[in-house]
């Protein structure tokens, strides 16, 4: 297996025993737009990896290609020992059960209760009739209650999702993803629809929970400061290519300029040192 090492290589295992490895991933949209142009990286240990880049750099496409909500044009995606690209529908579903996803717009089913939304993370493990009757195994139900408690929504189980605030909805989204007991978390702009304070709380929650569950998380984020304060590794995308891959401390004005274009970065970088105060 010969793979070009990603730019700014991080210490990590070879793709063969990685938790997740992406090789030469290409996505060309029907209109001819080349959203991903040969992305390669590997995730060797459970850590939070922030993917940064300006809008249109391919962040969202990358995340969505990994669980194939977007069908990649070519390349390989390997989750532990499973090759995801090219899997037939049935097996794809089995792999998706191992990948939790958190969305920018939360994507809760608004007219269902919080509990139903959280339990929907277990749909892969119950049959159709059981899901119709809302009969989930006892350990899933108690697991869901525990997760709700953990994300700070104890007592909200019978509330309808459309009665929640944005931050609360994202907490439900997080609980739903963790309900899957995933091998990997895909997080697509989790804070873009939230106010700055809630955004920090949600980011912290995602990172702590990823750590607690020993799960690697890929987090799309365009707030560089947030990425720097929460991630242990940052991947910078530009024009569908990886232009940076390294620890947040090594992000400097030069790198940011390469990712986002020329701008005064001194404010952004200085905030890295100070940590949150809430």
């Amino acid at each position: 297996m010969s793979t070009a090492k990603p730019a700014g290589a991080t210490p990590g295992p070879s793709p063969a025993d990685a938790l997740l490895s992406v090789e030469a991933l290409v996505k060309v949209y029907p209109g001819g737009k080349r959203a991903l142009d040969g992305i390669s990286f590997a995730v060797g240990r459970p850590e939070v990896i922030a993917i940064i880049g300006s809008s249109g750099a391919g962040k969202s496409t990358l995340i969505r290609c990994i669980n194939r909500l977007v069908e990649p044009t070519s390349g390989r995606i390997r989750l532990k020992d499973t090759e995801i690209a090219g899997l037939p529908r049935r097996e794809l579903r089995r792999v998706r059960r191992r990948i939790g996803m958190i969305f920018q717009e939360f994507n809760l089913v608004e007219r269902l209760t919080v509990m139903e939304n959280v339990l929907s993370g277990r749909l892969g493990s119950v049959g159709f009739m059981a899901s119709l009757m809302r009969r989930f195994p006892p350990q899933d139900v108690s697991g869901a209650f525990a997760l709700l408690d953990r994300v700070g929504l104890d007592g909200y189980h019978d509330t309808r999702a459309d009665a929640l605030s944005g931050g609360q909805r994202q907490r439900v989204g997080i609980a739903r993803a963790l309900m899957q007991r995933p091998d990997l978390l895909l997080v697509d702009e989790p804070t873009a629809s939230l106010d700055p304070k809630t955004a920090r709380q949600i980011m912290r929650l995602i990172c702590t929970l990823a750590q607690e569950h020993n799960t690697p998380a890929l987090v799309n984020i365009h707030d560089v400061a947030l990425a720097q304060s929460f991630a242990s590794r940052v991947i910078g995308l530009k024009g569908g290519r990886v232009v940076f891959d390294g620890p947040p401390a090594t992000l400097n004005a030069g790198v940011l300029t390469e990712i986002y274009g020329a701008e005064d970065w001194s404010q952004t970088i200085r905030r890295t040192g100070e940590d949150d105060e809430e």
Partner: protein
Amino acid sequence: MSEAAKRYPEIWQRRSLRETVTSWLWTVSLAAAAVWSITMLDIEWAFFRDAHEQAIDLAERMWPPRWSYLPVIIGPLLETIHIATIGTAIAYVFSVPLAFLAARNTTLNGFTWAIGRTLLVASRSVNTVIWGLLFVAIFGPGPVAGIAAVAARSVGFLAKLVAESIEEADRGPVEAIESTGAGTGQVYLFGIMPQVMPVLIGTTVYRWDINVRESSVLGFVGAGGIGLQLYASINQFAWQQVLIVLAAILVIVLISEAVSAYVRARIS
């Protein structure tokens, strides 16, 4: 520029000459078409001459209403409501799978979509009463034919509106459920059904209200309900009974309209 030099037009018209001509042409051709339609129907104008006398005569013969007929029609009245309710309930059950078949984003392939659409068009383009004719030929006269007719017509009505609502459903939750690795049926159940439920219930209640009105005439073709008594009374020239039946229909239709409006207001 001096004040005097500026001249203003003295004639103002809203439309240009061409627009005026077009709009007149439209009016004239519509009128011509109407006149042609009416003349083609070979109307016997003589009938119009004494129509008002006939109408007054009819009204006089209707009064006073024959109250003794009221107990006789209680049964048929209830039957009318039952036909509407059971028919609507059957249509409710079948409309959901049909809607998923006929919605572009949930159907299996182009072929199943075509089947779904054909069933929709077939159900909707045949009137309830004509469905009644057909089912009377199949099941024989009686309320079963009426129920089948109501169900056959309503299933397309409900499924069309539900299918539209499926096509307009928010993609986000659907994607989220898909990404948990749920099966297709579960994605529909959790991702789509909650979104279309209000439309399904609202249109069902609305259709039930229409169906009460429809089943009041199903008896004309032998498909059960109060229509049979109405038709019989008219044919026997028992106009005092006709008035009672009409009043009874008025009452149940108004009640069903009120119930339907109340339920729909509570849902939204």
